[in-house]
């Protein structure tokens, strides 16, 4: 066991593609934790999807040994997820550390999300070590980016380490700074056990493996432990540290980072941010900052082939094993049949789940339009959480509806500021602050409804800023809003899967666009199809798909027969894949209409 004074726990704060993973690889390599041969590109990202998307979805940890000035040090690198959807998990990883490397791409400068994570780290009193990465690139602008860093941190220019994850330049200096600047853990080895769970993973042989950092006390193999917030008790079947693989230990002490396996089968039982203590002689109180993360974005997921419902259910169950933040419950839709209402931390999370269903489980699904979680306050002052437009009580029972609000931070170049502010205002945003980070870079802070970003905000932001805008947000609470339910009717029949809750100011425009787009997507049939957008009984937009008046082709001779038969066979197959709403055949792509409104 290492003396506490020779332990360093740190994390890396960086924007998505600023080279965090590559730099981490170099640290592991330099300390001999992994050989070059072991090093499949980016050791820390071990999900296939993560590697492809170039983002770390779930945090992990790894321990390195490093001799420095005659002493042996243990360095625990705790990885942090890189996307806004996972900001709570980031905060727990940060809480497990005493220091952070602030990695900034020398070609791009600081991005919005880096800043919010940096502030999280500063709030937790972490020692910040600024690193200027990608110095090997020709278009590095070290002076400008250093100015930004100095402006933000108030550090000296000399404190900023120039590095390159690609070439290994600066790695030794980084390790030296970690040892010299990051404080060693503080805590009382003799106090009752108090350990913070900052992550967990699912292993199909061992069940849930929880990662923790000990703040006080010791844990031994075989101890009876309790998870304070869930109240559940387990035996510590195996504890250990995280090297390239898990290495079991018999005891871990204050300051250590390690894992515990205790036969837990469901990821729901292990909550990030929870405190582990002993059943006998427990700690006085849990570690602060625990939150039961609630999904904020909801969407229906339905199998394309209705016969695959059970298969989808079992896939969802498996997904949930290693992703506790995914929630779901069965739901049925008149248009789409049986499926699930799923809750996600955010849009990226939703996208990841969809892709994992496709890749890992080979499930073809229809995802309905996403919506946020609303609070309906009834006349009797009851509060109902609504995750689905069809779950909205009748208007006469509603006193008012509240929707989640976010504080959004956007960093962009000055030339895009006007159009970005306009976009935010169009999305019912309220400009709160505007700060020039440098002469050419501005940070704006906007309060806006979360519901406005779930549709097309990212895409619009990206296109108006030509990609030069970074965006970060966190939820600030709920505010009353004038929300209404917009229904889509096909020949007078409401299509539940196409209902949306939205602000009344947007209803007309949105309803009209929906009708126009649906008209493109619904094929002509034997009768006219009226597509209507309605608020309650009031029709606000209408389009008509004209009936097919003839479909016969004139010629049918020797050479036409095969061709024509194949064509008609194909038509029939296509029709079979459509969903029937009343008497109208609706192709699947129509249910995703909202995502294509701006195509």
């Amino acid at each position, binding site marked *: 066991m290492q003396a506490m004074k020779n332990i360093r726990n740190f994390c890396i704060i960086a924007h998505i593609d600023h080279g965090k993973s590559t730099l981490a690889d170099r640290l592991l390599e330099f300390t001999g934790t992994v050989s070059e041969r072991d090093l499949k590109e980016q050791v820390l990202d071990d999900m296939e999807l993560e590697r492809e998307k170039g983002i770390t979805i779930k945090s992990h940890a790894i321990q390195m040994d490093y001799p420095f000035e005659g002493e042996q040090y243990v360095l625990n690198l705790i990885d942090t997820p890189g996307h806004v959807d996972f900001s709570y998990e980031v905060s727990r990883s940060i809480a497990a550390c005493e220091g952070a490397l602030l990695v900034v791409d020398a070609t791009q400068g600081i991005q919005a999300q880096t800043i919010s994570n940096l502030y999280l780290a500063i709030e937790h009193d972490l020692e910040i070590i600024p690193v200027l990465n990608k110095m090997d690139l020709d278009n590095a602008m070290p002076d400008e980016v250093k100015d930004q860093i100095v402006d933000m941190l108030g550090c000296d220019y000399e404190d900023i380490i120039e590095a390159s994850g690609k070439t290994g330049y600066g790695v030794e200096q980084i390790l030296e700074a970690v040892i010299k600047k990051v404080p060693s853990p503080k805590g009382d080895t003799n106090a009752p056990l108090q350990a913070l769970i900052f992550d967990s993973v699912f292993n199909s042989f061992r069940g849930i493996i929880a990662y923790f950092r000990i703040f006080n006390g010791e844990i031994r193999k075989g101890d009876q432990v309790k998870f304070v917030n869930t109240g559940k008790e387990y035996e510590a079947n195996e504890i250990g540290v995280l090297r390239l693989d898990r290495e079991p230990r018999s005891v871990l002490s204050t300051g250590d980072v390690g894992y515990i396996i205790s036969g837990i089968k469901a990821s729901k039982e292990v909550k990030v941010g929870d405190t582990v203590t002993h059943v006998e002689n427990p700690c006085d109180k849990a570690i602060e900052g625990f939150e039961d993360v609630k999904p904020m974005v909801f969407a229906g997921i339905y199998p394309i082939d209705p016969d695959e419902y059970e298969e989808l259910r079992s896939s969802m169950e498996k997904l949930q094993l290693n992703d506790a933040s995914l929630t779901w419950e069965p739901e049925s839709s008149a248009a789409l049949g049986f499926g699930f209402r799923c809750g996600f931390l955010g849009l990226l999370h939703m996208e990841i789940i969809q892709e994992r269903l496709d890749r890992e489980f080979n499930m073809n699904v229809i995802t309905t339009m996403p919506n946020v979680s609303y609070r309906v306050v009834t006349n009797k002052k009851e509060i109902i959480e609504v995750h689905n437009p069809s779950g909205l009580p009748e208007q006469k029972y509603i006193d008012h509806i509240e929707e989640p609000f976010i504080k959004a931070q956007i960093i962009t170049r000055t030339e895009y500021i006007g159009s970005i502010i306009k976009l935010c205002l169009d999305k019912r945003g309220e400009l709160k602050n505007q700060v020039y980070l440098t002469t050419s870079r501005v940070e704006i802070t906007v309060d806006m409804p979360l519901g406005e970003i779930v549709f097309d905000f990212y895409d619009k932001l990206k296109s108006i800023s030509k990609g030069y805008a970074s965006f970060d947000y966190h939820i600030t609470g709920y505010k009353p809003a004038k929300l209404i339910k917009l229904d889509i009717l096909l020949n007078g029949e409401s299509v539940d899967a196409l209902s949306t809750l939205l602000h009344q100011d947007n209803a007309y425009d949105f309803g009209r666009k929906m009708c126009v787009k649906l008209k493109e997507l619904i094929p002509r049939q*034997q009768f006219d199809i009226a597509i209507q957008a309605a608020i309650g009984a009031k029709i606000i937009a209408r389009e008509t798909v004209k009936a*097919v*008046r*003839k*479909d*016969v*082709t*004139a*010629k*049918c*001779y*020797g*050479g036409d*027969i*095969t061709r*024509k*038969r194949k064509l*008609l*066979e194909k*038509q*029939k*197959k296509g*029709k*079979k894949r459509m969903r029937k709403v009343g008497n109208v055949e609706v192709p699947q792509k129509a249910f995703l209409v909202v995502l294509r409104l701006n195509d």
Partner: protein
Amino acid sequence: MAGVYVHIPFCKQKCHYCNFYSVVSVKYREPFLKALLFEIGQRKSYLNREKINTIYFGGGTPSLLGFEELISIIEKIKNSFHVDTAVEITLEANPDDLNANKLKRLKNETSVNRLSIGIQSFFDDDLHYLNRVHDAHQAYHSIELAKKQGFNNLTIDLIYGIPGLIRKKWIKNLEIFFSFNLPHLSSYSLTVEPKTALLTFIRQGKMENIDENKSIEHFKILMEKTTENGYIHYEISNFAKKGYYSKHNSLYWLGGHYIGFGPSAHSYNGVSRQWNVPNMKQYIEAEKTKKIIFDKEVLSKNQQYNEYVMTSLRTIWGCDPEHIQNVFGKFYEEYFSKIIFPFIEDEKVYRQGNHYFLTNKGKLFADGIASELFMDDE
């Protein structure tokens, strides 16, 4: 009863709407004929000595063939197949190729006994839109000359739904046709086929698009006027006086067997359908390689059923559930009878005796109805 189709893939110029295979260049005339004669000889057992009661020259433009060429092809067919003495031999002809001398020789020197003249319209502006070679005068004249030379079994093609073809002109076209008192008419709605110049021009905005409502109106007029004048609407696009149904085309619609020679020509022997490569260069290679390049599909039971439903419903003979039961089985017959029912309710199909037929309204939806009746493969 079986048929022979010969595809003559040459044209003076390409009509904008046409998607049949043809070339304008004449340099392949000789090698083509050699390859064609080779193919006829090589495939003589394809139809198992079934009796041939129709030979059809289609194209392309068969009227571009010289007499010697035409005669040698017919001779080769007669020598290779079991051809009925009463065989109907049809030649598709363009009005601009038909002069008095040519028609006379055609009548006297060859055994061609039926002409199908590609009139399309009796108005110059329509012919111009379609990029036909001939003009309205040649259209009239060719029919008069053909009749004069003793071609009684005559048919012409008329196209409706052309953008410039207003209602009055369409009626006029039909009246002119009636005035010749011909025994047969094929009339097609102009369709914009993929990979045609017409589609390109419409996309580019250089030509007016066709109007579905107009086609429907024209089709209704067509049905009404032909009936008034004693023609029988025996297939969606074909009208004839009693006894003058096209033997060749009827064969296609009744599931008969046929062999097709020339690039892109299709053959069917009841089990499989095959089609020659639609490429002149590759086709003429056959003379040297002794191999005709073709694609082939063996029809599954479902596909055979699908084709029966698709073609029979288009005709005056209708679709026979008893035939379905005998050939495909009870399961198919029950499926058919169940699916067809709502179309009867909808007055698109009617039942007479034991057969099902399309109503005039149903004739506009023949494809959709057939598709609904199809049996899926999985």
